[in-house]
């Protein structure tokens, strides 16, 4: 079963690199995931189709609000975000999934 990873950012212009790199990392690792980026306002719309939220560091003030939806959620580590380190971000998402809420 595919797990849905949703990246939450602001304008999203800087997140696209990370999504691509996470997809590559997932392919290498053979992880069954679907990754997408959304703006913060779209969170309520996608809750039903999400397994874990990753939040971009510059909008990390959204964490509490997003965690309130009862799904695993975490802020992406700054350097992983900055360098579009897909492996680190994927690893973070998968361990959040394992821990559950």
């Amino acid at each position, binding site marked *: 079963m595919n797990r849905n990873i949703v*990246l939450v*950012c602001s*304008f*999203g*212009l800087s*997140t*696209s*690199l*990370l*999504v*691509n790199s996470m997809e590559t990392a997932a392919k290498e690792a053979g992880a069954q995931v679907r990754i*997408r*980026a*959304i*703006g913060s*306002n*779209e969170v309520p719309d996608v809750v039903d189709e999400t397994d874990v939220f990753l939040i971009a560091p510059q909008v990390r003030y959204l964490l509490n609000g997003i965690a309130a939806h009862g799904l695993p959620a975490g802020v992406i580590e700054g350097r992983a975000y900055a360098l579009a380190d897909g492996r680190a971000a994927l690893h973070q998402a998968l361990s959040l999934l394992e821990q559950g809420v």
Partner: protein
Amino acid sequence: MDKLLSFMERTLLPVTAKIVENRYMQAIRNAFIGSALPMIIVGSIFLILAIPPLPDGLHGGWLGRVSEWLTEARPMLMIPYQLTFGLVAFWVCYGVAESLAKHYKMDGGRVGLMAMATLLVFCLPVGVRQHGHLVGLSAISLDRFLDDLGAVGLFVAMLTGIGVAELNRFLLRRGLILKMPPAVPQNVSRSFEMMVPAFLAVGSAFLLEWWATTTWSPQPLDPATALTLPQIVMAKLSFLVQASDTLPSAILQIWLMMLLWAVGIHGMNVVSSVAYPLWQNNLSSNIAELGAGEQATHIVSEPFFHMYAHLGGSGATLPLVFMLLRSHVSQLKQVGRVALVPALFNINEPVVFGVPIALNPILALPLLAAPTVIVTINFLAMHSGLVPVPTVQPPLTMPVFLGGFLADGSWRGTVLQGVDLAVAGLIYYPFFKLYEKKLSHFAAGE
């Protein structure tokens, strides 16, 4: 008769499917139902408040003073109507573009706004000179500008909605838009995707308008007489609008509707797909006349059919329901019971398919005849001035008698509905008896 009906069904079904399933027709119907109808009906309520159905010749007394004040304040009180129903083309334009864009899996709201901006450009004459200088929008009157967003602009508004949606689709398919990487959130990427289509839509509308204004307006170009595209198109199509408001046209329309219903196809749906803009034009002209203190004169509009012809549903089947309720054939009585409440709100599918009337060689005749006679009576009554023409469009579920009063703001509308009901009853009765007899025979034969 049986053969004729089944031949008609075979012939009409594919044609109907083409008209109704056509994506542009669908978008236009959606626009009228989804975006314009609330504005039309709410606008109608404001109209009733601005021009209430008070008896003529009230002088002195409390009611007389109210009446005088209303007449004095009319230009002001018309504003809520003018900015809702009065902008029907504006809302339709949005609705057509939104609906078509959704059909193409694009962002309906954004495309709808783009179509609105484009339509606004079409409502200003471009290239007009005053005292020898080219002028912009400051030289145009608000009146004329908003007029174009009303019934006058309906044709252009529908075309604009279609054109803008198609332009978006074309550019999207060819990749001729500012494409963001897939990971950019939708609200941002859509905003960027709109820029090229919006530029082309508004820009080409401006150039088209410039050409149209300078080509078709009376010369020399002057802000007071220069024409906009909506006005030019309406002038070219005015013969259609005028032709639509005649007795032959009314009879042709009701015949088409009833022929389709005779074979069990939603006739109002099909005919209105084509005729709605014409109806809206006639209705709006009435309101303009009313607002100017004149007598409204345009007869054939949406309420002319929905309120005064389709009493209890298409085919004026309300009297038939009462006959069904008192029938000794239990099958018919049962249909009557199910059909009564919907019929009070002008919904008669239970009658059409329950009796059935559809594809029924005996009842097809009065189904055609009753509305035709009624429409003729109503047209003549309104043409002669016995009954005022409809100026308000109540929701189609407005019960009989109440609907007749609301639509023309006069008790004479209610009386007309009563006459119509009696006539319809007289026409249906013999055929109903014949059918009842036939059913009893069957029942006895079993």
